[in-house]
């Protein structure tokens, strides 16, 4: 006699989800771009990002920076900072370290 087994899917859905959001294409040049600098608070990350920005600005003519310091290394920026980033910056750089 064959037995039948029914098992429930224990997941929150497939790993590959349809996502309407699309990454913007990488700009060919940073000339005139406003650069978001997202620091995570580790070490001297803000200073590092600032130096990176100035190096980029000298070479490419980037036109400004939006500086964001996350509330912690392991959490996203505050909503107000997200809003500043998405409304004012046209590209962004974030740092990593541990």
């Amino acid at each position, binding site marked *: 006699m*064959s*037995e*039948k*087994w*029914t*098992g*429930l*899917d*224990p*997941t*929150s859905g497939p*790993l590959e989800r349809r996502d309407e959001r699309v990454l913007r294409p990488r700009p060919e040049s940073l000339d005139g771009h406003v650069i978001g600098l997202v620091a995570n*608070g580790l070490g001297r990350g803000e200073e590092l990002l600032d130096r990176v920005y100035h190096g980029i600005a000298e070479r490419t003519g980037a036109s400004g920076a939006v500086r964001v310091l*996350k*509330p*912690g*290394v*392991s*959490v*996203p920026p505050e909503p107000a900072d997200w809003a500043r980033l998405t409304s004012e910056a046209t590209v962004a750089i974030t740092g990593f370290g*541990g």
Partner: protein
Amino acid sequence: MARAALQADRHEYGSYDELLEDYFERGWTDGLPIVAPTPEKVAAFLDAAGLEASEVIGEVPTREVVVTAEQAAANAVMAGCRAEYMPAVVAALRAHLHEKGNCHSTTGTLSGAAQAVILNGPVRSELGIACGAACFGPGFRANATIGRALRLVIRNVCRAIPGVLDRASFSTPARYQFCFGEDEEDSSWRPMHVERGFAPEDSTVTVASVMNMVSAVDFHSRAPEGICDSILGVILSRFVATDRWLGDGTNLVLIVGPEHRRFFDRAGWSKDDIRSYLWPRFHKDGKKSIGLGRPEGLLIVAAGGDGMGESWLLFPHLAWAITEKIV
């Protein structure tokens, strides 16, 4: 009762072996065999916890994930829990998914942090939670399966899958499960949940992230100060992770074994006496040398078995230890 409301996709199989192989193939297990999450079993687990299938247990906003009672029950069944463990599993999930539990970080981190599930109150004897000898290890169904249920939810629902959102460099065996209870009966101290504001008759689950765990072995000291100095040496050899967002709420868990406890008992030292001794010694030249914001951030738990003069320290990842009442 809850069966009719189950929402998950159903998969049909000709045998248990077929089901098991398919669950392995789909990546729905932790690498060990599972109990089949049949609609009947999942419904029974929901009933045992008095939950509707669609009830939301918590969320992981950064992953756009909502954890429902049905998903929790399916994974608890798979872990090998009995239905009566389900309220403890739900409390563990609520603690893990608390904002300051920082679950996205603690389960995605390169450091491979684990989650310690610590039970207090009457639930320990009701479910048979091991608190004494060998309580960190295998051999105890309630410990093993409640801890495993949390980890299966983390994997299957919260998407912390190695190479996907679990980015651990090495990971740790404690990620299969890590659950134990406080040995309240063999201790003269106030239990941890009472220190955290719950009534002695409450049953609670505390979930603490564990970036690493280290033993403080001291066979020689016969006085509390000496044992504390040994523990202090281990604490100061490591660090307690914290940041601006966690503020002063970070915790370090100290589990004191019975061979050490008897010297504290003999001298009449409480958990607060231990904190009072250690806290100033966390400071050097007027500056704190570890990331604990307050003395009570040091959570002290009585557990373990006789014979070995050791205590254990659970160093956190970037999270608070959260305690939830089992209801």
